[in-house]
């Protein structure tokens, strides 16, 4: 009995094993199915670019990209601010000393902020190109589609403008790179070619964008923004007719200056009547990742909770540049020992005598765990600059009357009710008036990342920055990031002198 049972088990087991072995060797047909695993928690792109909602999300991504570190914080400060006479490194003496290399023009191509700035701009450009490449094929409301394309063209133009100012001619990418693109390594285009693309994009944008949006969409690119940026680009190209034309159009669109200059830069005046374009930033509780702007944090008052790191501080030269009694001096600079209009007492001792007030967010709005001042929008283009561009273009075109009128609007707002200060400019001498307008730009737009390239385009950099080490023929542009040149296998050429 026992023997029989064992042999029975033996039979079953052995046959089972043999069958199992054969079966497993034959299942290769099913193997492919076993190996076809869905991506986990990652949406494959095939399902994207199919609806109006997808188009909107992709446009939103391009906006979101503008508030990143590379666009608003250290790289922007290095490339667009500390080279000027109005700002210097700040913070504690030995912290991030490479800013001094931008201040003193000793920077070399391997310095990391160059690459950070470059990369950030091209990321904006990719998000714009994704929309421009893929949204046209989506079946959706055509006028909305046109608007979306216009919005991202502005973003692309803005990014290329920041690149061409900083580096001169750069590689032009008007299409997003895809996985199977063979030739992604392209040489630099000339600065003229880059400017041509910028102008085309801005012309396209201005032709389709609305002059304003409903409340929920406040902060999107308007026609005014496209015209305003185009005016600025044209000003860099000395196309005065265009500058005059675009600024005149904007001046007929209902913008107005906020009466109190100091309040222009506070949270209550974000997207105000004076705002032509701002980078939208916010502190969203529970969403630290979306509250990622460090624009205010890196410039905030150092050594106090809710302040910041204290970089990019105003220089004494800037403090001295304001006319006596100009209220913009106190609105632009936080002085050590002062009490801010919002009631923050600034310690009389500390790392730096002055801080940027235009990026300042009152300390009590700080939320632990979030970036200080994450709420602060970056004012990219204000109506007062439109007026100053209008004044400059008018003067260059021989229309001193309009030049003086536009200039006076800016000075009048700064003056407020105090007639003792900031007298009306009356000179009609072209050279003198030009200088007056440039000086007005300097104080009106101080600490807004404008001064450095403004002086270069005015052709006065050797005179104004020369004592700090600026050299004509070299420092009009920064060096192309070395990593980028290396990765191009030398296809990208370095700027002269670097």
């Amino acid at each position, binding site marked *: 009995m026992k023997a029989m049972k064992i042999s029975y088990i033996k039979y079953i087991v052995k046959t089972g094993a*043999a069958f199992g072995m054969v079966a497993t060797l034959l299942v290769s047909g099913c193997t492919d199915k076993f190996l076809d695993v869905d991506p986990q928690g*990652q949406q494959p*792109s095939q399902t994207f670019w199919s609806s109006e909602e997808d188009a909107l999300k992709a446009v939103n*991504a391009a906006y979101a990209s503008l508030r990143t570190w590379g666009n608003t914080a250290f790289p922007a400060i290095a490339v667009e601010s500390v080279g000027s006479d109005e700002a210097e490194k700040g913070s504690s003496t030995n912290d991030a000393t490479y800013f001094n290399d931008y201040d003193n023009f000793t920077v070399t*191509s391997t310095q990391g902020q160059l690459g950070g700035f470059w990369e950030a701009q*091209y990321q904006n450009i990719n*998000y714009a190109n994704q929309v421009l490449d893929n949204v046209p094929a989506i079946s959706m409301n055509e006028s909305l589609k046109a608007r979306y394309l216009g919005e991202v063209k502005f973003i692309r133009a803005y990014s290329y403008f920041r690149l061409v100012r900083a580096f001169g001619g750069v590689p032009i990418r008007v299409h997003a790179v895809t*996985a199977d693109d063979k030739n992604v390594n392209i040489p630099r285009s000339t600065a003229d070619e880059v400017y041509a693309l910028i102008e085309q994009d801005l012309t396209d944008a201005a032709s389709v964008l609305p002059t304003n949006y409903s409340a929920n969409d406040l902060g999107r690119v308007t026609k005014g923004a496209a015209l305003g940026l185009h005016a600025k680009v044209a000003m860099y190209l000395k196309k005065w007719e265009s500058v005059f034309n675009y600024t005149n159009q904007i001046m007929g669109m209902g913008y107005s200056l906020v009466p109190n200059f100091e309040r222009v830069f506070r949270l209550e005046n974000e997207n105000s009547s004076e705002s032509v374009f701002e980078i939208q930033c916010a502190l969203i509780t529970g969403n630290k990742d979306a509250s990622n702007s460090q624009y205010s944090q890196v410039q905030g008052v150092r*050594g106090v909770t809710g302040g910041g790191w204290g970089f990019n501080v105003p220089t004494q030269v800037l403090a001295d540049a304001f006319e006596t009694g100009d209220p913009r001096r106190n609105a632009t600079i936080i002085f050590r020992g002062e009490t801010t209009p919002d009631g923050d007492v600034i310690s009389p001792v500390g*790392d730096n005598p002055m801080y940027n007030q235009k990026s300042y967010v009152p300390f009590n709005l700080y939320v632990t765990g979030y970036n200080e001042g994450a709420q602060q929008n970056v004012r990219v283009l204000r109506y007062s600059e439109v007026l100053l561009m209008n004044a400059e273009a008018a003067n260059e075109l021989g229309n001193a009357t309009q030049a003086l009128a536009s200039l006076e609007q800016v000075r009048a707002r700064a003056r407020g009710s105090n007639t003792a200060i900031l007298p009306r400019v009356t000179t009609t001498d072209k050279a003198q008036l030009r200088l007056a307008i440039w000086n007005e730009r300097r104080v009106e737009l101080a600490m807004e990342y404008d001064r450095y390239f403004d002086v270069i385009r005015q052709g006065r950099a050797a005179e104004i920055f020369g004592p700090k080490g600026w050299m004509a023929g070299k420092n009009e542009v920064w060096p192309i990031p070395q990593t980028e040149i290396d990765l191009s296998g030398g296809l990208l050429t370095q700027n002269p002198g670097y």
Partner: protein
Amino acid sequence: MKKIFTRLSGGAFVFFLILGSVFAQQNISIRGRVTDAKSGEALIGVSVKVKGTTQGTSTDVNGGFTISAPGTGILVVSYIGYQSQEVAINNQPTINIKLQASSQSLNEVIVVGYGTQRKIDVTGSISQVKGADVNKQPASDAASALQGKVAGVTITNSGAPGATPKVIVRGVGTIYGNTNLLYVIDGVWYDNMSFINPADIENISVLKDASAQSIYGIRAANGVILVTTKKGSKGRTVVDYNGYVGFQNVTNQVEMANGTEYATLINELTSSSGGTPIFSNPSSFGTGTNWYNEILRRAFVTSHQLSVNGGGEKSTYNFSFGYLNQDGLVKGNNYQRYTARFNNEYEVAKFLKVGFNITATDSVSRDVPSDIWHQIYSAAPIVAPYNSDGSFGDPYNISNGALGSSVQFNPLATLEAYNQKAKRYRFTGNAYANVSLTKDLTFKTSLGGEFGQYENRNYVGVYNYTKNQVNNVSKLSIGRADTRNWIIENTLTYNKKFTDHSLTVLLGQSAQRYKLYGSTASGEGVPYSSEGDLYLKLASASSYNYKDDGKLTTVASYFGRVNYSFKDKYLLNASLRADGASQFYNGGDLWGYFPSVGLGWIVTNEGFMKDQQIFDNLKIRGSWGKIGNAGVPYNPTILTVTATPQLSAIFGPDQKLYPGASIDVYPAAFLNWERVAGTNIGFEAAFLTNRLNIEADYYSKTTQQTIFAIPVLSSIGLKSDGGTKRVANQADFRNRGAELSITWRDKTSGGLTYSVGGNISMNNNKVTKVLSGNTPLLTGGTGITNGASVTRTVQGRPIGEFFGYQVAGIFQDATEVSGSAQPGAKPGDFRYVDQNGDNVIDGKDRVSLGNPFPKYNYGINTSFEYKNFDLAIDFQGAADVDVYNANIAYRYGNENFTKDFFDNRWHGEGTSTTYPSVAVGSTSNSAPNSFYVESGSYFRVRNLQLGYTLPKSILSKWKVNRVRVYANAQNMINIFGYKGFSPEVYGASILTSGVDANVYPLYATYNFGVNLTF
């Protein structure tokens, strides 16, 4: 009843018979001589024992012995290198014994992939290490005990309690993704063996060459380690206890600048950047605070392991339980691990065996912040650890924060504020069945699995320690990761010996699935009165944040192997494995085929070798094989949509968030299998009656189409792998090298048994092809060198070599600067070599600066046994290797400097021509350069262990079979020239290997232990 009586009486009869014979026996004196059966030479120091007693002696210089033994007894004669013999005495007064040299390699069986093989039949390169040897060096992870033991294996220990050492076999095999070896533990695949109690290990096989690894095709590219755990054996129950206690002490500590020196340096630094010196009287600070003394401690470790094993006629079992409690060197750091292991095997029928192995591991670690090492290194020594009122010393109080943000911390406060606990549960093992289908044909099926859970809890409470170490809103973060893996393997083995032919054929199939699900949740405003408060439900509702992610991959495989030997002289091993992996399902070659072939010639078994006296064994072998690597990102060729919060746009007066999504990744267009092809040629030889064993290998292996992420032009605007990078088949590289192991084992006539072994390996790594042409693949180091790359991978050079400027000297004065290629430099700055002579120092002037991977690794392992004492001393080292000492220039402001830097720095004309001024952290000085590259060669006494086994005479009273006590010291003596903490730098990834920015210091371990067997 009658039957029972008969049996009893029969038993009693036998019993009395035995008893009677014992009593009846008279001892007689026996003389004799022991000689070599072949040469007739006398053998000295041969052990001659009377079987079943402790009575014994050794032969003298003439091979002679005298022993007193019962006339009906049996002599057991044993000698190293010879086969033991048992000789019946049969009342003979003279017994001469001829011992046969044992071809020990002939009998030694080693574990190979999917089976075992006689060592003599192996044609690849496999090193086997016995569990007992691993356990001579108490360690929480058995891998770290392999250091210096196996030629060709480089092991870098991270040092942190519970951390897994980094193991590299024969040079860097792959760069990206999973760079871990494959650990096959009782047939189940893992990435590490840290969850296994080393005391449970029976033996470890390291498969070193491609032909041996090839049977594990898909995962073998980084090398394979096979681990067999202890099984029960039939017979009586044996209970073993192993325990040790010990401590760790930091050795070779780097001396930092003291208070006065620090203040002096900071004054110089501030002046050099154009500021006013902060301290009017640096000497007023005296020696200040030594932060290492404040933070580090003597770290204690305790380990207990109890195992029970045995078996009956039809089954065997082995249960073991282990407990490890290890403190970290930093106060508050602790790791505890409980392990339980069960192994059972039943012989259900003659032809059927079933069994299982289960390991359950539970570990808890109390963590310290990862940047604590850098904080201790950089903390200002002029800050008091504590104020007189017991509060933390605050750097801000020194000149109102003039020290700057980079040192605004008190490391003690950092530790106090940190509360993180990580738990890891792992339940893993396999169940298997062995069916003997016929006498020669065996079917084996195994179902293995792993259920793992990882829990991480981090709580940042509300605190106000120093001006800048303040937190007003508490935050609780909880992370979970679940692992659910399974592996099924079926093999059919045919084993047949014909007269001159011996054949083994293996056919197999395997399927694997790896699933990981992880989530993190956080909330703010969680109160803290006890650990019991740490629930997210107590967080403020608006602050909730939850994210999850998952990974899933599958692998299907088929494999086969033939082992054939003819007349035990000619060997042929060939295998083929086919693997399909889900990562390559779209846009890649789904199936990879990995063949191997090996040939061997046992020269000593040839007729013409019969009469030679030199070799006891000589085998020449050669092999070739291909292996693969699937350790690549999940679905690397699928273009996916990015929809992170960072891409949400903000609009409207209320600044609301609107979802954003787009494409910003740069997937590979097509991904091929990364393949490694390797050739190995070697020989094994035994001389002098097997006392001297030599094994030598030469190998060359190429890794083709290596997959990794490389930086791409950032103007593409796309990212992957956390930066502007792209994952693709990028490069081919080659590792070539040689290994030599020599072991001498002997026993002296005085009773000293000893062995001395040495191994050395040499490896050369070279990139043979970069798909991007001449474009170097720049990697590593961003963040610590202001964004500049420290390493590069370029054709014709080693992988990840250091790269930067060559320092020619230090600028002494302004005149030197003005005439140089660095017009922006200051006196005291590095003067770089203008390699291309264009009078500008720029990227083109960077050159190769060193290789982070050692060219030579060596180890010397010795063991001695004399009477009841045993001693093991192991030495180990690496040579021709470089380290990038990034700590020196890893500065944001007023971090502390080393004493060495203080003593040698440039501080005025003529003060130094090698060290820069305090402005060492400036952009141009901190740019990767040759000053920071130092030799990483070292030599150390890796392990020293002295044991004493108590004499049996004492033990018999205690009913204990064996008691051994030992003392052990690891890393007691370390010799190296590197100025950092440890030349063994545990890089975060292969391409940042050797970049020392924040390392666990080197420490010595002292343990005292006991082994008991009942």
